[in-house]
């Protein structure tokens, strides 16, 4: 859920502060934009997947079957970070 919200604004409007020259030529921004979008999407996905394994996996849902190795190993961190735990 974080993934969809974090990168929701598409990078169509280039920064007025950081990109004063990009207003003159739209094409380079669009080309750069699609590559940038890939970067943003990939990074957000990486962050969300890691967030999931630290916080949620082997609690409410489980990817690697019915064992508790991840859950028990990061047990204290999970409590402290504020995730619900058994």
């Amino acid at each position, binding site marked *: 859920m*974080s993934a969809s919200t974090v990168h929701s604004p598409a990078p169509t409007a280039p*920064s007025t502060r950081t990109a004063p*020259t990009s207003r003159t030529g739209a094409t380079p*921004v669009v080309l750069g934009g699609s590559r940038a979008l890939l970067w943003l999407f990939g*990074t957000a996905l990486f962050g969300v997947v890691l967030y999931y394994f630290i916080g949620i996996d082997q609690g409410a849902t489980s990817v690697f079957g019915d064992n508790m190795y991840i859950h028990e*190993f990061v047990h204290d961190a999970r409590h*402290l*970070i504020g995730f*619900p735990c058994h």
Partner: protein
Amino acid sequence: MEGRFVARGMLVGVLGGLLAFVFARIFAEPPIRRAADYESGREAAQNALDRAAGLPVETPGPDLFSRSVQGNLGLGIGMVLFGLAVGALYSVAYILACGRTGGVRPRQLALLVALGGFLALYLIPFLKYPADPPAIGHEATIRDRSGLYLLMVGTSIVVLVAGVWLGQRLRPRFGTWNATLLAALACVIVLGAVMWALPSVGHLPANVHQYGRQATETPPPLRNAQGQIVYPGFPADVLFEFRLYSVAAQAVLWATIGIAFAPLADRLLAPSPSPDGRNVKKRSLWV
């Protein structure tokens, strides 16, 4: 260009996770240990009651990892990887915020995005569903509690992003100061309404069915068949200490991210001298 922001975001995230771990190891681990001790003591008392009542007693299997591993290596790796995850998300948020948040300079923006991350990913969800130490939390409701917590996190992200957008829309009409206050007020109202509408953990059907209508899952005193207290309720001081240090550990993490990222972003976005000696701004974040 984006890759350089992402790499720096992850770097400061790992650094923040490391510092948060050091903080947590010193301050938070003692109350976590006391909570775990309470949990095992309560389990023993419950088993004694069950045996006296002639009920079958289930003996739990051995721990996968010892308390010492959980409290040192597990805590450390957990905090560092969490820092890495939020550092990655932070860099994405920072890139998206560049140029869309008014006349904020790169360094100030670094602090503001970190503040937003602290609020959306931790403090606002915490207000409704605060962090609980071991011994608090019923196995039967883990699915509901996880769903509600993530719903709170998602709502906080959406509301804060919408709040920034609203502030930008109101700025030409009301000025920066008043637009910021109005947007913040709108966020507080919407988030307050969501928190009011969502159920308390104790009011989940499974809990009401088994324990009656309690506000939370914090264990009350354990009583025997005659109603005498045979094991105390969860100690309030331990709960307070744990929650205080939980907030503080996150503050350490996000403050480190914001403060460490600020000079890095400043350098990435700073005007670079052009060959003929004039200062030219970097062309674009997207190129």
